[in-house]
């Protein structure tokens, strides 16, 4: 028998003593749902793609990312990143810059020409998708990946929906949008531009589609009755944004007033500044904290010299001047008129009071229910009409690109199940990886990386992109700030801290296993796991 150095007597090893029998609780490895994944309306597996990005494997990270979201370069620019709001690291120092890393990955994919593969064999089924906004594109993408033939009909001359006609170019450069849409087109779908669908039911029968996904958006700017003189210049925010995106931007004059408190109002005011308005004022009847616009948008607008008038509404519009009425909030927080008026010089008045969906294509489908101007769908995006699904701004929900992409993904899953005649089952969700399960001692201090911003002079005169991207080393740094909440990332801590050597390594990427022959169930590994991926459960005795 070969013995260790200088050992002469053959003695028995304590390995004969199976101390696992002492155990009353056993540690088990678990996967928990990280808060970023939980918060993502597009259902991205954020933690998992950051895991690849941390290793510098950007292509694997991107492939994991587009498994859920086909537009990462767009999303990395326009998403309001609820993932970062939910991020556990925010409680430690600052949230991980998930959105910035997403943008980096999206841009890498465009620069290097990565494209997703269609691996599923053709199913022979055909699906009509109406509207090429984020929701329609996402649905088309996921349906193609599942092997279905997709025809995508777009009423406008160019694809993209609100991403093209609603989001200003300084937030989303058109070259990025075009490139990502082109990549989806390259997956073999039929895109028909300037092809409005006026009757969805007729379109389905005429061409023999097996299912349809409707995502026509909310394209009609809401109006309000404002007494106006003959020569008052009044337009709605969507026409302004749409006109700016086309070749002929509207003439606004030097003093522009925007009514409304949402993101569109901010976009309109910032666009007005860039079109030459020296004075852009947002008039909103409530206070800043009640504004539906996202904080980032408000901050960026203020930085660009947009002024805000809280607690006011436009009572009358005339050429060159407006009459504002001051408002006050009542006990319920609702704005009430005060009867006090003042004048404000204005060459143009822009209404940003919300948008409505044009649902005329549904007229021949009485089973589809419409309430409050939006189509009623279940969690599976199905309407009352068999085989017809809807999503994006035309159904109830927050009207953002991210939510729309999530709708498209979910609809594609249900449509796939519908076409295959199988029940659509949502994957079971793991319990949340909450902050209190982390052992944050182990994470090194690392402040968030900042994205460069365009200088103010150019932000007030051009439509150049305002927020810059991260370079490779900063993106890598940012990805490595991820705490990997609730998911093992192989830090070897459990392997190191076990007093009984009862943890086995299974090899890179394969994590660990407990050796229950010797594990005494002390639970040190549970307390010391940085990311909370081990539970201690009672032993069945």
């Amino acid at each position: 028998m070969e013995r260790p150095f200088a050992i002469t007597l053959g003695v028995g090893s304590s390995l004969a003593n199976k101390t696992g029998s002492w155990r009353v609780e056993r540690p088990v490895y678990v996967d928990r749902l990280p808060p970023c994944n939980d918060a993502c309306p597009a259902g991205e597996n954020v933690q998992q793609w950051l895991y690849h990005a941390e290793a510098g494997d950007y292509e694997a990270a991107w492939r994991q990312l587009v498994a859920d979201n086909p537009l990462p370069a767009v999303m990395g620019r326009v998403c309001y990143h609820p993932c970062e709001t939910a991020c556990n690291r925010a409680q430690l120092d600052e949230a991980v810059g998930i959105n910035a890393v997403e943008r980096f990955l999206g841009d890498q994919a465009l620069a290097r020409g990565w494209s997703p593969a269609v691996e599923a064999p053709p199913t022979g089924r055909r699906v009509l998708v109406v509207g090429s906004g984020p929701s329609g594109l996402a649905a088309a993408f996921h349906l193609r990946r599942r092997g279905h033939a997709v025809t995508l009909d777009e009423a406008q001359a160019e694809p993209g929906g609100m991403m093209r006609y609603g989001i200003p170019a300084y937030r989303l450069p058109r070259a990025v949008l075009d490139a990502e849409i082109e990549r989806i087109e390259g997956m073999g779908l039929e895109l028909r531009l300037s092809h409005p669908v006026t009757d969805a039911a007729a379109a389905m029968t005429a061409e023999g589609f097996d299912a349809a996904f409707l995502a026509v958006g909310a394209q009609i700017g809401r109006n309000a009755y404002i007494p106006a003189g003959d020569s008052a210049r009044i337009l709605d925010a969507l026409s302004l944004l749409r006109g700016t995106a086309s070749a002929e931007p509207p003439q606004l004059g030097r003093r522009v007033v925007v009514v409304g408190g949402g993101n569109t109002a901010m976009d309109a005011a910032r666009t007005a500044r860039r079109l030459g308005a020296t004075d852009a004022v947002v008039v909103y009847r409530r206070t800043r904290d009640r504004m539906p616009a996202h904080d980032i948008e408000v901050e960026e607008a203020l930085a660009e010299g947009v002024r805000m008038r809280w607690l006011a509404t436009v009572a009358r519009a005339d050429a060159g001047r407006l009459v504002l009425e001051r408002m006050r909030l009542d006990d319920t927080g609702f704005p009430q008129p005060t009867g006090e008026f003042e004048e404000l010089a204005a060459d143009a008045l822009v209404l940003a009071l919300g948008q409505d969906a044009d649902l005329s294509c549904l007229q021949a489908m009485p089973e589809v229910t419409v309430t409050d101007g939006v189509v009623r769908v279940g969690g599976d995006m199905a309407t009352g009409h068999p085989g017809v699904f809807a999503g994006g701004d035309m159904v109830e929900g927050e009207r953002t690109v991210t939510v729309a992409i999530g709708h498209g993904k979910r609809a594609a899953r249900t449509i796939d199940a519908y076409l295959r005649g199988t029940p659509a089952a949502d994957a079971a969700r793991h319990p949340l990886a909450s902050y209190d399960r982390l052992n944050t001692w182990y994470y090194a201090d690392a402040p968030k990386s900042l994205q460069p911003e365009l200088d103010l002079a150019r932000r007030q005169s051009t439509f150049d992109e305002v927020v810059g991207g991260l370079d490779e080393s900063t993106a890598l740094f940012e990805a490595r700030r991820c705490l990997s909440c609730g998911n093992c990332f192989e830090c070897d801590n459990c392997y190191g801290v076990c007093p009984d050597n009862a943890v086995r390594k299974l090899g890179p990427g394969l994590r660990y296993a407990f050796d229950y022959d010797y594990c005494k169930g002390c639970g040190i590994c549970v307390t010391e796991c940085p990311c909370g991926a081990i539970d201690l459960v009672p032993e069945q005795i």
Partner: protein
Amino acid sequence: MSEPDRVPARSERLKFYQVGSFAAGNRLVDPALRTVQSDEGRTNSITSGHRACQGCGEALGARYALDAAMRAADGRIVAVNATGCLEVFSTPFPETSWRVAWLHSLFGNAPAVATGVAAALRVRGRPDIRVVAQAGDGGTVDIGFGTLSGMFERNDDVLFICYDNEAYMNTGVQRSGATPPLARTATTEAAGPEPGNRFGQGKNLPLLAIAHGIPYVATATVADLHDLEAKVRRAMVLHGARYLHVLVPCPLGWGSEPRDTIRIARLAGETGLFPVFAAEDGVVTEVTPIRQRQPVEAYLRLQGRYRHLFDAQGRARRPELIARLQAIADRNIARFGLDRARVPTETAATVPARGAS
């Protein structure tokens, strides 16, 4: 300090790898910068099947230290063990958990036996084989202190490691010279106006070792693996008498949850009650800074041996006693510069003994 093998416990290169700086390892970090404990090829000096209690800090500390020593000495060490828990739980006849050459003699003579082993190896012309001696706090600060002091003053070529769990745990938790004030043990009951161990008693062995002027003295806890391994590595580079004092919480004697062993060791450091530092040739050369300072209460509350300081609702029952412990922690922080990672200019002799108030 300029030797090439002086690898810092934490390098800038590790800083941004999520947990690379503090956890045992990380898939993204160069294997050479991970801890010995993260390596599947570690010796496992004490292997599975030993009979230490659940969550034993000493079993952990001994494996950490000896595995690092084995790595540093290329697998050639002889370990001499004093009597105590470590010896009892690892070698009930006919089984042993040791995977290193290991000797046990008596409770009080481990330093002398180690001196003899070192002398024998010298005579046999085997400078490649290094000697490590280890004992608990009883075998070090009380029963073995005479022979240890002799080993220090002769500067024998031995690394002596004390696994300090602050009482005689093996025989039923009796007070030792390393038991801190207020701690309840079987011989310092939690009763009377000064419950638990008294203030003003006991001895601070790291400072006594420094006073011997030996080449290397360091303290460490089982909560900071990178730091502990760096200290073993440093000690193994040097020759002569070297002393490492490792704090190893004892769930049995401290009345703590087995799962909290490392957490408690970490709090001992972060409160300032257990200063982590190193000294060479009688001068403190390195201090491990506190990262997230905690009040001593955070440390005390997790331990049954201090339960008498709190009522059933968890409110401090004797705030004036806790304040005295806090004062000790505060003084440690000031004397060692634990809050700003500077090397103190005061000499060891000006640092008061542990337990003085």
